[in-house]
């Protein structure tokens, strides 16, 4: 897994870390049960403060992506593939919703929209 942070992005540092680890879990880069970098190790690697990193981790834990074992570190939650699929579907729906809004803006017909999707889907 790679994590990059940007100082010019509008998002705060902890949000950037949260997003990137979440995405790595959802796309399978981080496997179930896999150990995450330690909070202090990641802080050192990214040259950010410990509190920033631990805030990202506690949010990931709150949202069920990871769990922590005192003295051992943090791990990717071991859950059914369903959960990950669910999360991915929700994310996909969000994007479709946005796409539909834009389609409505230029008065695209439903068939035309689906046709576009089909073309993209088939590559």
């Amino acid at each position, binding site marked *: 897994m790679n994590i990059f942070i940007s100082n010019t992005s509008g998002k705060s540092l902890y949000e950037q870390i949260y997003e990137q680890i979440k995405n790595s879990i959802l796309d399978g880069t981080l496997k179930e049960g896999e150990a995450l970098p330690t909070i*202090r190790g990641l802080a*050192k690697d990214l*040259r950010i403060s*410990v509190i920033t990193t631990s*805030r990202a981790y506690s949010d990931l834990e709150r949202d069920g992506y990871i769990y922590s074992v005192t003295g051992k570190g943090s791990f990717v939650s071991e859950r059914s593939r369903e959960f990950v699929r669910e999360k991915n579907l929700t994310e996909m729906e969000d994007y479709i919703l946005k796409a539909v809004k834009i389609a409505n803006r230029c008065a695209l017909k439903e068939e035309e929209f689906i046709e576009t999707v089909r073309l993209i889907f088939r590559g």
Partner: protein
Amino acid sequence: MIKKLQVKSLFKTYGDFELNNVTFDVPCGTVVGLIGENGAGKSTVIKSILGCTHPDKGEILFESKNIDLLSDKEKQKIAFVLDDTGLPMELTLSELNKVLISIFDKWDQGKFNFLLGRMNLPKDKTIKNFSKGMKMKAAIAVALSYDNELLILDEPTGGLDPVSRDEIIEMLYDYIQNENKSVLISSHITSDLEKLCDYIVYLNKGKVVLNEEKDALLEKFVIYSCDENDLKELDRKKVVRIMRRAYGADVMQLKEDVPERFSYRKAGLEDIMLFYSKGVSL
């Protein structure tokens, strides 16, 4: 959160300088940055903690115990890096090692030698022939070569080149890999601290102006530009500081208080310091 160090209502006057009711904590396992201009009182605060100066009033607690009551061994739990290092200049580092074995109870020769190797510091050259960066790295190697719990650094990166600064920051990150260790670091170069610190204490003319979690502080203030007419319309109470320029003025304000028509940018630590020291209230 457990407090490693507590500074309570410190007062100290000499000449026209004063520390005025300085209060802050270093929570266990965190890095606290003490920032402020030169002469703001950072060194006096640090010297008070280290017992090198005697405050007129106030109290300093280490692990809830008054520092004046600590035994010699307990005091060695507080490591330090002084702005002028304090190392004996005529000694080589291998001679210094022999001296420090009998001074620090838990001195670790192996660790010292390892750190010197890692930082490419020569063992047989007298310290007076070191560059400023090498002296500072040697002083940090000393502080990291015995078992301690709180590391206090006074301007460790002042006057150093970016490469040396980075090596020092790297060592500090190594130190805090152990979550029981805490750091208090003073500096007027805030770019280094923006990365490392969990909390920021901003000292201005001997007073604590801000004492906050760094992430929150960096989201707190914003800066925008306006002209004299705009200034008249601003809510005086909500403007933190303004700085007038020849062709306009810059305003620093809490993010949520900014009138909608202005586009703003976030204030960094340096901006905040600049506005508090050079800016005026409206």
